[in-house]
Every structure is written in structure tokens, then in C-alpha cells.
């Protein structure tokens, strides 16, 4: 299929991009890697009047450290993330989960920030960034603001970014010393996650001191399995982990589609949470 016609600008600075977005209003769309936007355009599921291509803005691509935070620029691709030594050292969960996104060619173009701004609950990375307690830095006509991941995902395909705001970087607290695992369940290797579980576990004295669990595709937004997180505190063996995982589907609102019913997705969430936590804790 053929994308509908649109106007196109390719700003060379963030300020210029923000001005273009402000002028375009609701009808403007940001183009980063294009791996979510272009299929939508080709199927004519989106009809933007203006596409703002931020791909050539200098300084948006790359990963740096900022004290206890890891800062990932908006044009940093999935491929960059998977291979970046800083990400692998301080946010291994993100590198591991990103390696499961789509396929190599898509990972060459698609960006972390683009995936987050697209806010698809079936995407792998929103739940991961939620589990990592990440935050998004948005720039708009009124300046910059920082949005915590838990406030960022508003609804299906909807983030809390204003139409005139550009997501410029993703900031992640370094998760040094945390065990991690991303458990993705899908029917064929290139299909979307039916359910995904992102687990981060900090252990102390042979017990789980703290756990954070993000759930992919279990609601219109990525979720944290808070009941399980709390129940995991102090868990010292596989049996305790299994008991805690029983509450992993609490508060979820899974959808029904051709691949699975909500009931099955809830069941999977419990099983996969147990597996992800055991793997993250090195108890598997």
C-alpha cells in the first residue's frame, strides 16, 4: 500500500523541530526511525498533514552517563542500544529486551524513544523502561520537562507528550547489581509479544531484597506487577518466588485477539513472571 500525502520538514535543531510541531498542531507527526509510523502510513491507518523528520538533528543519537543516570538520546537506534557498552553495563535488561524487538533491519532504523512515544502496550520496551523506573525528557515551546515512565503511558498508543513536544532523551537510573531477565512469549519469532515480563531483581543475603516487574501487553498501557513485587521481598527460594508470581496478573486488563484470550494471557503472566524472576535472581 501507499502512504497518504503529507508535508515534510527536516529540522536541524530541536528548537526548529518544536516550532514545526507547534505549527502543525494535532496533524503533525514526528518521524524518527519510522519503523512504527511507516507501516501505519502504508496501511492508511494514520493521515498526518505534516511529518517532522528529526533524524538529522545533531546530538540526538548516542548514550552517555550523567551521574547515576544513563542518558539515551532520542535518535539512538535499537541496534545502538543492544551493542552499547554503557547500556549493557548499567541497563542490561534494556539491551536484552531490545535484542528481541522485531528483526535486525528494523532494529537498525527503529529507536528506543520512538518505541516509547508510540506507546504500544504490545511493544517490548515500554514495560522495560517502566520496570527500570526510567524517565522521559520532552522539549516543547514551554521548555523541557521530565516525565516519569509511570506517568508517560496514558492509553493505547497514547503518551503524555503534548502534540508540540518532542521526546529528546530517555533517562534510566543505573541498575548496577540488579539481576534481570526479559521473558517474551510469542507465537512466531517476528510476531508481537503475546505477553512479556521484564524482571529486575536485587538480592541481598541470598534473598530477594527488591524486585521490579514490568508487563508487556497486559493492558492498554504497560503495567508493573506491584502485588508480586511486594510479595517477592524476602523471597529466598523458588517456591517463594512461585507463590509471589501467583499474583502477577492482578490489576491487568488483557485484550482478546486472534492469538489469545485474556484468561490465557493472565495465566501466562503468572508463569512467565515466575520464570523471569527466577532467571533474574539466578535461582532458575
Amino acid at each position, binding site marked *: 500500500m501507499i502512504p*497518504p500525502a503529507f508535508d515534510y520538514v527536516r529540522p536541524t535543531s530541536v528548537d526548529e523541530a518544536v516550532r514545526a510541531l507547534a505549527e502543525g498542531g494535532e496533524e503533525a507527526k514526528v518521524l524518527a526511525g519510522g519503523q512504527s509510523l511507516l507501516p501505519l502510513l502504508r496501511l492508511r491507518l494514520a493521515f498526518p498533514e505534516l*511529518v517532522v523528520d528529526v533524524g538529522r538533528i545533531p546530538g540526538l543519537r548516542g548514550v552517555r552517563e550523567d551521574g547515576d543516570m544513563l542518558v539515551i538520546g532520542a535518535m539512538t537506534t535499537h541496534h545502538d542500544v543492544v551493542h552499547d557498552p554503557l547500556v549493557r553495563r548499567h541497563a542490561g535488561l534494556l539491551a536484552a529486551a531490545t535484542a528481541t524487538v522485531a528483526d535486525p533491519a528494523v532494529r537498525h532504523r527503529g529507536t528506543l524513544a520512538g518505541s516509547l512515544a508510540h506507546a504500544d502496550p504490545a511493544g517490548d520496551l515500554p514495560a522495560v523502561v517502566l520496570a527500570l523506573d526510567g524517565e522521559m525528557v520532552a522539549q516543547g515551546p514551554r521548555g523541557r520537562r521530565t516525565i516519569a515512565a509511570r506517568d508517560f503511558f496514558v492509553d493505547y498508543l497514547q503518551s503524555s507528550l503534548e502534540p508540540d513536544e518532542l521526546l529528546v532523551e530517555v533517562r534510566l537510573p543505573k541498575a548496577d547489581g540488579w539481576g534481570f531477565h526479559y521473558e517474551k512469549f510469542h507465537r512466531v519469532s517476528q510476531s508481537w509479544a503475546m505477553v512479556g515480563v521484564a524482571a529486575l531483581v536485587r538480592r541481598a543475603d541470598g534473598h530477594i531484597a527488591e524486585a521490579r516487574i514490568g508487563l508487556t501487553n497486559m493492558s492498554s498501557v504497560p503495567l508493573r506487577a506491584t502485588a508480586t513485587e511486594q510479595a517477592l521481598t524476602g523471597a529466598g527460594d523458588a517456591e517463594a518466588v512461585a507463590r509471589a508470581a501467583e499474583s502477577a496478573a492482578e490489576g491487568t486488563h488483557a485484550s482478546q485477539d486472534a492469538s489469545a484470550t485474556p484468561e490465557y494471557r493472565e495465566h501466562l503472566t503468572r508463569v512467565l513472571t515466575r520464570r523471569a524472576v527466577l532467571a533474574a535472581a539466578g535461582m532458575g
Partner: protein
Amino acid sequence: MTHISVKVDGTTYEDDVEPRLLLVHYLRDRLGLTGTPIGCDTSNCGACTVELDGVSVKSCSVLAVQADGSEVTTVEGLAHDGELTALQRAFHDKHALQCGYCTPGMLMAARDLLREHPHPTTDEIRHALEGNLCRCTGYQNIVRAVQAASEEEVPA
């Protein structure tokens, strides 16, 4: 219309294009480089895979304007002076193609793998090709071909 300059298989082209023009349609319909085919509209099949500035991309999911100033290599730019690449030879020797429609994309995806990972396991080959669908071969001979090419000195 947006003015672009793109180097494709060694030749630089300057054109005015609609911003919505897909790179694959630019290659096929404007430049007449029909070696790169289109197999789907959701970026699942990978038939249209080309190399953009040194890495594999699906040319149905890139706008021509995004390739402005870039270098593109297609399947038509692989062989030089009739000299096939090791991957092309291996695809022939190992019967890694039947109808051949997925072959350009498979070659470009495999080339990308071997550049990053010169000696992959069969499992790594299968995962590197996960974004490229073939309906004829069941993939087995494609995996064999990529493995055979990886054993050559200058694989891609």
C-alpha cells in the same frame, strides 16, 4: 516535492520526490532498479531489504527523503564485473532459492549478519534472518548457504 541526492550501487542520483515516496518505490519506479522486490505492506517479509549507509534496512519502511545524502546498496550492486560474492555463490551452490523472490532480501540480511558476525552458528543465522520470509525453501538451504559463505575468507 523534496530534492534528494542518493548514491545507489555506486551511481549518484538527484531527484525531486514526493516526501511520501517509499525508498523501494524510488528504486523500482524512478531508478528502474527492479532487482529489489516488494512482498508486503507491514515490513514483515524483508524481500525489499537493502543496505543503507552500511546497514540492512527494509526499503519499504524508509522514505526516499530519509535516504537523502546516503549510500544505498541493492542486490544489483553486489557482484562486480560479473564476479559474484561468496554469499551469492553459496546461495547457488546450496540451492538456497527456488522462486527467488525473497533472495535479494535474504542476501542483504545475510550480508549484514556476516559483517557483524563473520562466523555465526546455525542458530544465530536463523535469528539474523527472522525478518525475512521465504515460502519455498523451508529455510534449511538458506541457512546452509550462509554458513558456507561464512567459511570463506571474504564472505559478504
